[in-house]
């Protein structure tokens, strides 16, 4: 035995159907100095990939319906020749909770030292959370834009049918929304729909 062993690069497999999020994770791993990272988006044929790649760590998103399939392959020594234990087994409760909360799960080869794997999961958790936040903000921005468009259309309808100025049309929308305890965009939506029905 050598007194000092050089740690070889961990072989990491990332399975994520969301290509953007997968690349965010991949980039995080590379920045942390992991050079041997493989990313797949489709679990089709994952058994063969695991067999040839022989990963030390597998990171998978919780939304993937094929987690059961993946776990069953770890039990079948026929298709995967190395025992793979679940990372979550040997990590602390708060990491497990944070991982499930973030929507990510990881599996590691049995016997791999905790200190080597925990940073990987911590990184995956923070990147998953950042991705969710970004996706949420994008969604909000998108609906904000949609709302603005629909309000503009409603204003146009009011200006044309009632001969109002743009400012007055907006005031009318806002007043109606306040009276009905609804959002301006909802009132605008109803108005646009109603106008559409009347046109037909």
């Amino acid at each position, binding site marked *: 035995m050598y007194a000092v062993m050089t740690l070889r690069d961990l072989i990491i497999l990332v399975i994520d159907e969301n290509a953007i999020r997968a690349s965010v994770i991949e980039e995080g791993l590379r920045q942390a100095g992991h050079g041997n990272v493989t990313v797949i988006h489709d679990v089709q044929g994952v058994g063969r990939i695991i067999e040839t790649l022989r990963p030390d760590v597998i990171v998978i998103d*919780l939304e*993937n319906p094929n987690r*059961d*399939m993946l*776990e*069953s392959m770890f039990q079948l020594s026929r298709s995967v020749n190395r025992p793979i234990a*679940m990372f*979550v087994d040997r990590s602390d409760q708060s990491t*497990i909770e944070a991982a*499930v909360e973030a929507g990510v799960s990881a599996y590691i080869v049995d016997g791999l030292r905790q200190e080597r794997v925990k940073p990987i999961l911590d990184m995956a958790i923070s990147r998953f959370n950042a991705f969710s936040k970004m996706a949420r903000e994008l969604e909000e921005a998108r609906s904000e834009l949609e709302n603005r468009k629909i309000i503009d259309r409603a204003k146009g309808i009011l200006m044309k049918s009632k001969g109002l100025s743009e400012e007055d049309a907006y005031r009318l929308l806002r007043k109606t929304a306040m009276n009905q305890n609804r959002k301006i965009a909802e009132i605008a939506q109803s108005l646009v729909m109603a106008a559409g029905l009347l046109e037909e």
Partner: protein
Amino acid sequence: MTDGAEITIGFLPLLDSAILIAAAEKGFARDEHIDVNLVRETSWANIRDRVAVGHFEAAHMLAPMPIASNLGLSPLSVPLIAPMALGLGGNAVTASVPLYEDMSGRGMAGDLDPADAGRALKTVIAARSEAGMERLRIAVVHPFSGHNYELRYWLTACGVDPERDVDIIVVPPPLMPDALASGNIDMCCVGEPWNSVAVSRGSGRIITVKARIWRNSPEKVLGVTSRWANAQGDVLDALLRALYRAAEWCAGSDNAEELAAILSRPQWLNVDEKLVLGCLTGALATRPDHIVQVDDFFVRHAKAATFPWQSHALWFYSQMVRWGQCGHSAKNAVIARDSYRPDIYRRALKPLPAPLPGANLKVEGALSRPQPVGASKAGLVLGPDGFFDGRIFDPDAIDAYIAGQNGHRGN
């Protein structure tokens, strides 16, 4: 005492989530002053993990899952209990169209008889092996599932070795119809409505059913952590009462159409209402334009369908041993048995006019006809409960049963 209790329950889109969905949709939970929030999940692994970290107070679980967890066989093994079953039966075995035609060509009558289908399958496998063709690929939903065990039971009893003659893999239930269509798998054993969906899409034909392999046999349970059950006993009891009354409602033949309409909604199963109705009434379209009426296909309430029989837990355990998932010891058998909690079921349902079985275990497969049994109130009838090969499981003789099984032979 339970006023305003909120319970989040995870489920997979399957026919036997019916009792949970009915409890929420038909007001049975509200009657018990509990607010049920159902969350549809994509995998049993997620159900397990989210119960373990406390996202879900309770979940729709494969009956062997709590047993496997208590035996330390699954990741994140936390102590789980099954205080209630969620019905009996509900699964089927579906072959791809090419395999079905091959089996029909080798004399399969197509009336769902497991022995008949098994004979044809054995002939097909022999012919494929002789021709140097690949092994048939058969999908189940999870390694610790009734599907895995009933499939292997059926195959073995028909002379097919599940470990050498075929490849058994795992596919999520809603993906089975596509997997059959694409040729990724040749056969699957899955809960309804996914067999019926495969038939309706033209990608599969039902060849036998759980109810014919082992009549009135266990399938899903309500799973909760021991920790939660101990801390929130009152809430758990209220939930069990709500589910019991939901099960009673689900079983009413006058309610089948309404139940089918509810289950078919996008947030629940998101499957055509007519297909769901066929599954509920046991009128299975096994192939296009061919309906077979299956007795006791999916039993929601009668025959103590929600009682957590410890003999069911022990049978599942005997199959875990059979297929090399765990070793047999007296200690393991006790862990498996005690994963099911008939004591909690009785405690919770005491205020209801429900006939509760007097025993915790029964001999499985011994009843060839319906039979009244000892209960807290008159009116409880069990069975028939036969295994298709006529074997009997006596939980008191589990050592002999395990010793007499041919199963896993190592790798």
